[in-house]
């Protein structure tokens, strides 16, 4: 008696499992079909979405409810033709770039290498769109109307994106030269290196470095050779 009860129970739970598996499969197929339909819809009715406020609200609401970032749709529809990117694409990309800059500011003090930026953008992107550093520059040019908050710097032939930090201070020439020397030295500078290379006196070294520490542009290492303090640029960690 007891035995058959256990058998029943096993059979029921087996059945239950297979039903719920089937449901999950069906649901996820439906969802992905729906997603691609939505993408098509967005590219076909792009103008309508843009111009009709009520339509746009409803559309955004729809996207949210099935877990699609409308921004990603914009990126995707704007990049459908891989040769000619649309304005939409650059604008959406600019928003993405700003997001990354905000997220990483506490770590890098507002200076990020384009290489790192690209790899983070790639990581966050579920639709696998190929983005080049030229496109980053182009989409940043769309932000110029908002003031010079985002700027490309060349340091030792490598491109960096500088964005205004919370303190609002820009990157001075001296700070830029510190970063140049860092990249020659494999990541760090010391007062002595600054003196030998740029003939800065101690006061200038201290002023520049202290400000960079304050802004999070360099990290301090007190255990350098011969007890010399080393000042490291944090992008070393991700390079």
């Amino acid at each position, binding site marked *: 008696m007891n035995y058959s009860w256990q058998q029943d129970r096993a059979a029921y739970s087996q059945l239950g499992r297979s039903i719920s598996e089937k449901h999950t499969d069906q649901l996820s197929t439906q969802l992905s079909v729906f997603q691609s339909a939505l993408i098509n819809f967005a590219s076909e009715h792009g103008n309508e979405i843009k111009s009709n406020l009520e339509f746009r609200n409803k559309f955004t609401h729809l996207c949210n409810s099935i877990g699609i970032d409308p921004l990603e749709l914009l990126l995707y529809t704007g990049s459908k033709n891989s040769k000619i990117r649309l304005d939409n694409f650059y604008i959406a990309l600019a928003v993405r770039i700003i997001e990354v800059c905000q997220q990483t500011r*506490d770590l890098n003090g507002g200076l990020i290498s384009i290489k790192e930026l690209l790899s983070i953008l790639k990581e966050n992107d579920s639709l696998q769109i190929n983005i080049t550093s030229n496109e980053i520059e182009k989409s940043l040019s769309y932000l110029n109307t908002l003031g010079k908050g985002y700027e490309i710097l060349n340091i030792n032939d490598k491109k960096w994106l500088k964005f205004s930090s919370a303190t609002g201070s820009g990157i001075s020439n001296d700070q830029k030269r510190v970063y140049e020397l860092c990249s020659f030295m494999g990541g760090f500078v010391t007062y002595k290196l600054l003196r030998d290379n740029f003939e800065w006196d101690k006061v200038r070294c201290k002023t520049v470095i202290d400000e960079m520490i304050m802004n999070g542009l360099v990290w301090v290492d007190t255990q350098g050779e011969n007890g010399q303090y080393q000042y490291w640029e944090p992008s070393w960690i991700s390079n």
Partner: protein
Amino acid sequence: MTTEFVFPKIHTFPPLYTEQPNSTILSNQLDSWCQIILQYCEFYKITSLNRNGTPKYSQIESLSIDSLPPIFENKSINRSTNDNFRNVIIHHLIYKLKKAQYIDPKKPELGIYVYWRSLVEWGQLLYDYVDSTGQLGTVLTLYELTKSDESGLPDSLKNLDEGLLIKIVKDYLIKQGKAQILMNEDNEIGGVKIV
């Protein structure tokens, strides 16, 4: 156990071993350190650390705990944290992230429990094991709960530190009304009953 824990790249970043003066950076730095500690302990199944950061107890019996690569030192770049900074990191792990506790708050020199698995998750594992083996309501010795080979003890619970086991029972299961501790005549813990 032949494989060795691979430290994240930041572990070879020399300034990581110096307490950063910029408070925003410092808080990021402390988070990084705590991540390293938690990953390291989970990898080696270390459930407690000495006060200086060396491993104190691991569930893996075959592990020679004294020859593991140190957490707070990196010989390849000749850097190590000083005692003071080490305490700051451990303080962050305990009070900010709540991922560790002193083994005995009155005797911090005894070291800390490290919670890469929380007390709640441990308690759940223990409860599920006792439940699935039909032993709810049975008095079980600490030995049976951590060492026994006979009753299908899952790997996750095998060789659990008895001190930690008691903490899981006292701080979680008893508070949930799911367990009782029984003392023997010498006033030691004789067994645990999970209900």
